[in-house]
């Protein structure tokens, strides 16, 4: 089933694949994110309850959704790396980590900026905000653990275990925080019922979610290639690659 994946365990194959994919991801990202954001900001009608502040949804929801999925993707990469002993998988995992951390940060920041006008406070211990904050800790843990080791091969494995422990824990965190929050729910916070979103508001949101996905994919490819170059700089194929590059530059 996964036979098609195996050739990409080789760093060279992975490099050339992600080199080929990056422009596509980046292009589709721009094509979706720019019109989606403009549509969301300029053309969708204001929410009857929240006015124009609801437009933050077009950046908040994609970031929040994808921060979780990026973590799961990281854990999948870690599992692949541990089960099949692929160095490339660990590199992909660590390439994703900062991107996911930035997504989490964006989700938290926009959540705060949305909460201020809606709830009257920059930060409330809302269940989703809290679990997002813990997710940020998890990302920081993985990144810090990776950078603590000098031997990056070892670092990848260690960070991989951490990512897996975290992913087992994510549902537990999610439900516990939800439960904790309903227990402690203060009267000041009025929870909005989630109304089914109108289609004219939904389309730009879907575009932004897809665009953000492409952004993460493109960034992951770019960072993966950096990682591969750094770790494999003494391999012959890297020298050949650089040699070709130099000659091309000289020819131009």
């Amino acid at each position, binding site marked *: 089933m996964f036979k098609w994946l195996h050739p990409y365990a080789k760093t060279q194959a992975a490099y050339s694949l992600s080199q080929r994919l990056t422009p596509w991801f980046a292009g589709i990202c721009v094509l979706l994110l720019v019109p989606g*954001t403009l549509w969301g900001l300029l053309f969708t009608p204001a929410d009857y309850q929240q006015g124009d*502040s609801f437009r933050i949804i077009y950046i908040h929801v994609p970031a929040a959704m994808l921060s979780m999925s990026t973590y799961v993707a990281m854990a999948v990469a870690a599992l692949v790396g541990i089960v099949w002993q692929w160095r490339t998988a660990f590199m992909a995992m660590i390439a994703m980590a900062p991107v996911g951390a930035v997504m989490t940060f964006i989700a938290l920041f926009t959540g705060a900026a949305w909460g201020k006008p809606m709830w009257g406070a920059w930060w409330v211990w809302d269940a989703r905000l809290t679990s997002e904050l813990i997710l940020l800790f998890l990302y920081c843990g993985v990144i810090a653990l990776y950078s603590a080791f000098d031997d990056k091969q070892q670092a990848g494995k260690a960070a991989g275990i951490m990512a897996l422990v975290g992913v087992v824990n994510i549902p537990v965190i999610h439900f516990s925080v939800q439960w904790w929050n309903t227990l402690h729910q203060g009267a000041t916070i009025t929870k909005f019922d989630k109304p089914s979103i109108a289609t004219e508001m939904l389309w730009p949101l879907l575009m932004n979610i897809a665009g953000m996905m492409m952004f993460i994919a493109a960034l992951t490819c*770019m960072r993966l290639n950096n990682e591969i170059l750094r770790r494999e*700089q003494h391999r012959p194929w890297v020298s050949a690659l*650089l040699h070709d590059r130099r000659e091309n530059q000289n020819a131009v």
Partner: protein
Amino acid sequence: MQFDSLSSLIAMGGYGFYVWLSFGVSFLVMGLLVIAAKAERRNLLKTISKNQQRQVRIQKARQNGQSAQE
């Protein structure tokens, strides 16, 4: 178009500060991520090719030294 003038677009019905702040910061951070990745790649390519050229020079010097000895 939901807004009839630029000022009403910026005001966002009174929520301008929050909306523009969140969009601004988000795209700024995303932009920084892209710039960092690109700069890293440029630096890497530069240092790797420098190292390689150095290797080539060392090899050449060695060969010259050997031929001189002979």
